[in-house]
């Protein structure tokens, strides 16, 4: 089916579509949408992120029907959800672990983009909208974590809002404004609840723009080569819907294992102690998905510089398309970039690990080296490689790449079959 068929279609669908082309829209963007035929499983993570966003919104709305945003009642209302509300424990564990799954998926999604050069022309705005989504996700997750009003909630909120006090002159005013008072208290909790409800819908909006920008030029692909002919693409449905479906199945199995067998594995036990403004827990760490950024903050012995560097760690992603100007997109054909990329990937894991460790001894030193490499990768290595790196083995088209990879193998198999037949 193509658009013309649909427009001429009789019946209710045709009648509606002529006046409100919603079916044409779906057809155009989810069905016939031409997609490079060589996408690998790393291209599953976009749809998975979208599905996780929907899961978070649905469970979040149902939780908000039971939750009370008041410092006297918040902790108890969450315990009531766990004990008294029908399947409340399930609802809360899905939402809680869903945040972790969301960040895992989005981080893989980002590293996919980094490896295959998905941020390069003409997809710069697509990439930048992605960074906006990441920032919104971080703000949303942080404010959601405050809501149960446990010890980690309270002290996490205190520390993160205090980041803004590092700014000269206006810092203290900003912090007082954020708190709605002189410390993290009831006004803070109430506004965080409101914003935690609001921001996910802002994310939905930016995701819509993200998809519009994506569909303008279509998906990148593992070769990083542009689509040159119809032979390079296949329709999204059923080929990629079914592939996404498989990925979703695997994802849901992992998610379910976490929810049903290790629901508190990724959380911190101290958040099961009600918030106490008079005592900070001995070992206060953020949620795992903030650890790399937390490590960068702690690597710098200066308050303001630490804060600026931590914000810069995300901000540097905005200008990425102008730091890596190499003509070839995919790291598959860039021998040096590939190695620095994997080093960067490991470096991010190291940063996360250091973030979870106490800020003393060897960890401080490791944290500084890792922070240096984090920025060096973007600001030094990328511009240099853009100038000097030679490429190797770049195929002439997507089809050419697919044919040499897949059909050589298939031809060989057929040969083997015929040989064994002869025997």
């Amino acid at each position, binding site marked *: 089916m193509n658009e013309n068929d649909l427009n001429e279609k009789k019946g209710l669908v045709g009648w509606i579509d002529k006046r409100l082309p919603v079916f044409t829209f779906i057809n155009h963007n989810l069905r016939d949408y031409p997609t490079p035929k060589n996408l690998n499983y790393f291209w599953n993570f976009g749809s998975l992120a979208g599905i996780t966003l929907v899961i978070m919104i*649905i*469970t979040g709305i*149902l939780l908000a*029907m*039971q939750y009370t945003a008041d410092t006297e009642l918040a902790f108890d209302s969450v315990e*009531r959800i766990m*004990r*008294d*509300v*029908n*399947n*409340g424990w*399930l*609802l809360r564990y899905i939402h809680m672990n869903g945040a972790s799954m969301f960040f895992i998926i989005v981080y893989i999604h980002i590293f996919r983009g980094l490896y295959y050069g998905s941020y390069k022309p003409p997809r710069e705005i697509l990439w930048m909208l992605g960074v906006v989504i990441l920032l919104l996700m971080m703000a949303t997750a942080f404010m959601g974590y405050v809501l149960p009003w446990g010890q980690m909630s309270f002290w996490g909120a205190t520390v993160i809002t205090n980041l803004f006090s590092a700014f000269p002159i206006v810092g203290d005013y900003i912090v007082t404004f954020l708190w709605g008072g002189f410390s993290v208290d009831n006004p803070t909790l109430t506004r965080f609840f409101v914003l935690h409800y609001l921001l996910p819908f802002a994310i939905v909006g930016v995701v819509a723009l993200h998809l519009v920008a994506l569909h303008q030029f279509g998906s990148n692909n593992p070769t990083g080569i542009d689509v040159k002919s119809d*032979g390079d693409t296949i329709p999204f449905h059923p080929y990629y819907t079914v592939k996404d*479906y498989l990925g979703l199945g695997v994802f849901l199995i992992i998610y379910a294992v976490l929810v049903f067998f290790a629901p508190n594995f990724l959380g911190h036990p101290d958040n099961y102690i009600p918030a106490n403004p008079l005592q900070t827990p001995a070992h206060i760490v953020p949620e795992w998905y903030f650890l790399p950024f937390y490590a960068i903050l702690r690597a710098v012995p200066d308050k303001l510089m630490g804060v600026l560097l931590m914000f810069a760690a995300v901000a540097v992603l905005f200008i990425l398309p102008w730091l890596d100007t190499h003509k070839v997109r995919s790291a598959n054909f860039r021998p040096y970039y590939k190695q620095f990329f994997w080093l960067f990937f490991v470096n991010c894991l190291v940063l996360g690990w250091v973030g979870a460790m106490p800020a003393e001894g060897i960890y401080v030193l490791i944290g500084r080296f890792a922070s240096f490499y984090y920025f060096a990768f973007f600001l030094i290595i990328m511009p240099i490689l853009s100038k000097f790196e030679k490429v190797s083995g770049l195929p002439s088209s997507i*089809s050419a790449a697919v*044919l040499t990879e897949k*059909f050589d193998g*298939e*031809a060989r198999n057929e040969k083997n079959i015929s040989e064994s037949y002869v025997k």
Partner: protein
Amino acid sequence: MKREDITNKRNDSSIDEEKRDFLYITTTGLALAGGAVTGLALINTMNPAKDVLALSTTEVDLSPLEEGQNLTVMWRGKPIFIRHRTLEDISSAQNIDIEGLNHKETDQSRVQNPKWLVVVGVCTHLGCVPLGQKVGDSKGEFGGWFCPCHGSHYDTSGRIRKGPAPLNLEIPPYEFVSEDIIKIG
């Protein structure tokens, strides 16, 4: 293998349609079943929680109530009207022809002890609380209760006599624990 060959293979009659249907039906079926179970589990969170269900009985001591006095108590978040009826109230409730009523119930079927009328104080039209409990309230044209929202009149047995309400005031489940104490719920 060239592209034309692949295309030909796709249109080949050797495609096993039955196998495709089987895969299509099992996949869709499983997804629908999983979605339905998950959806129902999530929707069920909106049903009354255990702490809400725990508040389901109320005990009332009737001894301080003089003849002709009313008492309103809460049960499951709703008002329960208790009236210590006078002999006049009782006879007016009993001596009418129930065939003329919209909701045909005898007074005897609505009380356990004719002295005590116990009804849920929620108008059966759209859920307002009728007047008639407090001294000075309008009791309506039939000496019982009058709903101010849309003008329903109830008699001394709590039966609907006039107005848009379709049914008599509901009788909650209750029992006499002793002579003067009732347990509602």
